């Protein structure tokens, strides 16, 4: 076991990929590394699981929403209502503007991320073994351990941040007011202009660098936090799975703990999205 444990881990962390080699679409089945480092590769397993889980979420909630009842809600409807009210409450607590996007966005994020994270609780070998039986050798089951997923989501949030910042504050208000006059506001610091505001330029440039980094750190931290937590969790499961019989109590303990992480990371992703978007709506 020890001799091929490295292989085992590597195997579990390998995506099923497709890419073009010499103008022809190939998968990495049987040629593990053929797509490595290819920036135009597609992670088939990631795409499959994310789209499936997202569709599952949409279908489930859509079905409930379609047959929704005011009077006597069924159990599924009660659950959906609970989630929706929880998200709505979180949005209303933090975000005081009016936006038709933020609440549904938060709902989609929390449910989708939760479902993706939840894949981590399926024993690590089940789905890859099942896939192996139908001839697919590589299958990374937990989509949120793929940075493409977390970056894809956080970039969408980032563009929404930019969109709302520009929309609410205007180009000048955002770029000058938000990015250049913070955190060191020359007016408040009492720096004299001698009639030439241009003298503030060095401070403004300094602010712009700081604030741009801060702005870019938002999507980066958002995605890396989720990715890091889930990747580490998944790696722990794989390592525990290497232990043979002792894995049973350990796996149980880690899985119980991981329920917390799964839920917490989904919640954090949603909450930070709401916070960032509400910051984009309000001048500070």
């Amino acid at each position, binding site marked *: 076991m020890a001799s091929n444990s490295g292989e085992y881990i590597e195997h579990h962390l390998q995506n099923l990929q497709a890419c073009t080699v010499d103008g022809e679409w190939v998968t990495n089945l049987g040629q593990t590394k053929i797509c490595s480092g290819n920036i*135009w590769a*597609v992670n088939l397993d990631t795409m499959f699981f994310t789209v499936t889980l*997202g569709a599952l979420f*949409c279908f489930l909630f859509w079905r409930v929403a379609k047959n929704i*009842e*005011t009077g006597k809600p069924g159990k599924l409807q009660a659950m959906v209502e609970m989630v*929706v009210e929880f998200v709505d409450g979180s949005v209303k607590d933090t975000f005081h503007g009016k936006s038709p996007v933020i609440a549904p966005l938060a709902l*989609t994020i929390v449910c989708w991320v939760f479902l993706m994270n939840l894949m981590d609780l399926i024993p690590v070998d089940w789905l890859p073994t099942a896939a192996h039986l139908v001839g697919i050798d590589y299958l990374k089951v937990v989509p949120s351990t793929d940075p493409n*997923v977390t970056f*894809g989501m956080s970039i969408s949030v980032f563009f929404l941040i930019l969109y709302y910042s520009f929309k609410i504050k205007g180009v000048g208000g955002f770029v000058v007011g938000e990015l250049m006059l913070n955190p060191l506001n020359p007016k408040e610091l009492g720096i004299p202009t001698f009639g030439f505001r241009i003298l503030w330029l060095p401070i403004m440039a300094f602010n712009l660098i700081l604030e741009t980094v801060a702005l870019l750190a938002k999507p980066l931290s958002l995605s890396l936090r989720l990715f890091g937590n889930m990747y580490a969790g998944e790696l722990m499961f794989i390592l525990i799975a290497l232990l043979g019989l002792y894995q049973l109590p350990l796996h149980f303990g880690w899985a119980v703990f991981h329920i917390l992480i799964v839920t917490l990371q989904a919640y954090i992703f949603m909450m930070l999205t709401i916070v960032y978007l509400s910051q984009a709506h309000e001048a500070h």
Partner: protein
Amino acid sequence: MELNIPTFLGQTIAMIVFVWFCMKFVWPPIMNMLEERQAQIAEGLAAADKGNRALEEAEVEKQSILDEARGQAREIIDHANTRGGSIVDEARTEAGSEKERILAAAQAEVEQEANRAREELRGQVGVIAVAGAEKILQREIDSATHKDLLDKLAAEI
């Protein structure tokens, strides 16, 4: 950590599609339902409140009707009592006068009867006296000649 553009873009697009779907088909009906339910609950509470108030009013009305009925009943009973008393009194006086009347009639009849008997007796005593005298005097006394004497005697008895 490997980044590749198609997966990344695919994720972004998938997310946009799912968020759009959620925004279009999931969020509004659920929110509408929740708002509708809020309205219904508020309505229900208001109705319950109204019902309670109506109940209180009805309670008050009931009490007043009950009091009125109780008063009426007492009045009727009092009335009946006095009426009963007066009927009994009336009957008593009527019975008294009837008794007196019957008594008087009976007395009159008794007196009449006694008088008649007395007359009859008187007549019969006269006859008996005459018969007695006849037996004693037989020949000397002629009933025809001494008739007025005998009548006088009879009248004296």
